[in-house]
Every structure is written in structure tokens, then in C-alpha cells.
């Protein structure tokens, strides 16, 4: 049986000495002691000395802020950049109010709300006279500037196997949306 088999007493081979590694790798072993690493101990007092508060001041709640029902209360600080609006907002409120994070329904509703939101925002942009531009805003023109074809052909990239599929997945909702809008328009004219 070979000496390098995992069934041998000292199976691990080929590890250079500390002196060799220290001479070859800048800073080798500088954090060798696990007790001297920044993330030791794993759990520390969460409130740093620089904080002047015990419990942070409660941020004003401009609307009944959606929150996980697993929380005891609304957190003192929260984001206000995604206020729930329209149909997507109603779906989000339902997901937060009814289901915990343990329920697939919670996340599936939030995923659905994201998709609805995209459509709502696209329609809103159209109504405001600034429709989304899938050519300039997706950065697809970068394919020409940054050598899209040769970048993909070079080397041994494995993601090229799904690249033909990617534009279909990105473009299909646009094509389907256009087709639906055209059908609606034609029906309205009749």
C-alpha cells in the first residue's frame, strides 16, 4: 500500500515548513494564533463603547411599517426607501402580516411582489414619458466595448453553456408584455 494513502498513519504530505512559507509568502503566520484574530471571541458585547445610547431613539413611523412577525417590536431604526405601494405593496403587506420567515408563502409572496413591482414601475415610467430603455439601461452595449464574444470564447469558461438562454430569460417578459399590450390595444379598438 502506498505511503500516501489516507489509511496510513501520517497521510498528509507536501506541506512546506513554516520557515519556507514565511520566506515565500508576505505576512505568512501573522494571524497564526486563533485567539489573536479579529473575530475572536465569536460573540462579543454588541454595543460598542462609542455608542452614546442604551436603546437607540425610535425612528418616526411614517406608515405602519411592515416587519417580520418574528420580531418582538418594530426595530428602532429602519429603511424608508421601499414604501409599499399599489398591488405589489398589498402583496408585501400580506406576506409580512400573515406569514413568518419559516413559511415558504412568505418568501414566495415577496418574490411575486418584486415581479409585480417591476411591471408597475415600468408602466409608471411609461406614463411619465420616460420609458425604460432595455438597450442603454441594461448595459448590453458594453458587449461591443468590452469584447463580449472574444471574452466568452477565451479560456475554459463553463458559463457559456447557458449564455444563449440568458437573453431569452431577460427578453421574454418584454416580448410577452408587448404582445399582451398589443392584444389589449387591438381589443379596445374593436
Amino acid at each position, binding site marked *: 500500500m502506498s505511503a500516501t494513502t489516507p489509511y496510513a498513519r501520517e497521510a498528509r504530505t507536501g506541506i512546506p515548513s513554516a520557515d519556507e512559507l514565511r520566506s515565500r509568502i508576505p505576512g505568512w503566520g501573522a494571524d497564526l494564533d*486563533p485567539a489573536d484574530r479579529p473575530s475572536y471571541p465569536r460573540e462579543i458585547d454588541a454595543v460598542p463603547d462609542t455608542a452614546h445610547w442604551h436603546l437607540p431613539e425610535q425612528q418616526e413611523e411614517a406608515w405602519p411599517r411592515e416587519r417580520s412577525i418574528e420580531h418582538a417590536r418594530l426595530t428602532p431604526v429602519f429603511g424608508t426607501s421601499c414604501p409599499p405601494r399599489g398591488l405589489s405593496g398589498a402583496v408585501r403587506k400580506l406576506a*409580512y402580516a400573515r406569514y413568518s420567515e419559516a413559511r415558504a408563502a412568505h418568501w414566495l409572496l415577496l418574490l411575486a411582489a418584486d415581479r409585480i413591482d417591476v411591471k408597475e414601475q415600468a408602466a409608471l415610467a411609461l406614463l411619465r414619458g420616460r420609458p425604460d430603455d432595455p438597450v442603454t439601461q441594461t448595459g448590453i452595449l458594453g458587449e461591443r466595448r*468590452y469584447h463580449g464574444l472574444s*471574452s466568452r470564447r477565451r479560456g475554459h469558461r463553463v458559463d457559456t453553456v447557458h449564455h444563449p438562454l440568458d437573453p431569452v430569460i431577460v427578453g421574454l417578459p418584454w416580448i410577452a408584455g408587448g404582445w399582451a399590450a398589443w392584444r389589449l390595444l387591438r381589443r379596445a379598438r374593436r
Partner: protein
Amino acid sequence: MNPNATAVGGIYGYSHTTGGYDGGQAELVRVPFADVGPTIIPEWMSDEDALMCTDALPTGYFGAQLGDIAEGDVVTVFGAGPVGLYAAASAWLMGAGRVIVVDHLDDRLELASRFAHAETVNFGQVDDVVVHLKQQTDHLGSDVVIDAVGAEADGNLLQHVTSAKLKLQGGSPIALNWAIDAVRKGGTISVMGAYGPMFSAVKFGDAMNKGLTIRANQCPVKRQWPRLFEHIRNGHLKPSEIVTHRIPLDDIAEGYHLFSAKLDGCIKPVVVPTAA
């Protein structure tokens, strides 16, 4: 703080699932807990080194710490993006005996060799990456494996399409599954790759039966800074060396596509507002 979920805390630009805060790429940014979060950039530090300290560098450094690396350990890092490159370079600081980086992009593997002094494996060139890694590690497997890939992993068409494209999984666990199989029995897996909150098809039975320790987290960035600043000042780490592209703000849409589609050998792009 994150009212929307009990996971993590608040993260800028991470959607309504991490507190609904806008992203930091804006003219003005609201900074909650400004008496706690920010720090002063040392005068000797370059802007690009400081920029890398905000996310990718501390994440890679923290990822190596989650691996509980002991002196002489064989460490394999899946993913040679910015986080994976920094994790590989950090593994040496903690005393790794060998560092192996796995990816399918030659430009990134070349940088892993040059910047992180790592051995490299292009999984697009080997028949079975797990068997290849076993052959390279005395058929034992690595002591520590770091997943620095996460939700959009390539390497298995079914996993990629059902997760990254169709969102039927909370992330493509290709790298995590390879990590479970490539680590030695009783080894440790550090997960830095980001996954969504929904379920993913992870080979958990293999992990259980091998007696693995799996450690995962978002990085506590500020906690890493004092030591990372020391490492940069001492020349142990030169984080700005991985920057490949500097994008004017006017071209940001194309810049995102460049990074996302990994065109032109892009590894780490930087947005430069004044270069427009």
C-alpha cells in the same frame, strides 16, 4: 437594524429583505449610528485600498477566520472573484500550509496565482473537480474549504438555471456541494458566498455523515479594520492590486454588465465619478 427579517441586520442596497435601505451609490447617504459605524481613513492609505476595505477585503479575511485555519492546513477556496482572492491571501496569514483556488476563468486564476500565491484549478479543464482535488490532497481532501461563490454559481446547468435564472431555489449550491465533497472528514467549511432565504438543493446528508463543521455569516466589517489596516501598512496585503477596470459614472450601466457578464477579464471594477 432590519425590521423585515430576523436574519442579518440592515444592509445598504440589499433590498427590503435587509431593512429596506437604499444603496450607497448615491449623492447623499443616510448613516444610522454614525457614532459607531464609520472610521477615519488613515492618511497613508490610498483611496482604492480604502475602498476595498468596505466590503470585499474584510469579507474574504473574515471568511478565512470562519475556517478556523490551523498551522499547516490545506485550504481550498471556491471562487476567484474579489472575495475569494482576498480569502486565499488571508489564509496564509493564518498559517495555511497550502492554498488552492478553484474557478473556471483563466484571468482570475492567473491573479490567484500572482496575487494570492495560490495553486490553481480550472474546473472547466478537469473531468471531476472533487476527484481532482482529492488527488491533489493525498486523497484526504482539504482541511478547510471556503465557498466564495454563492447564489449564482456555474458548473451545473440544472442547478444554475433553476436558481440564478428561474429563482426556484434560494441560490445555486454548486460550490457548496463541491465544498462538502472536497473537504476532509471532520473538516470545516466557511460559507462567504451569499444565498437567498429560500431553500437550496444542498447535499446535507454528505455533510452530516462526514461530521463537518459549516460556518457562515455576513461579515462584521468594522471588526476587521484595525488588523486589516496593519496588514496593508505592513505590506502583507495589497488589496487594490485586484482592480482591473475604472468606470466613469456616465458608463455605469455598461460597467455593471461588464462585471456581471465577466467580460474583458474583469475581476474588480471601480466607479470613478470624476472620470466622466
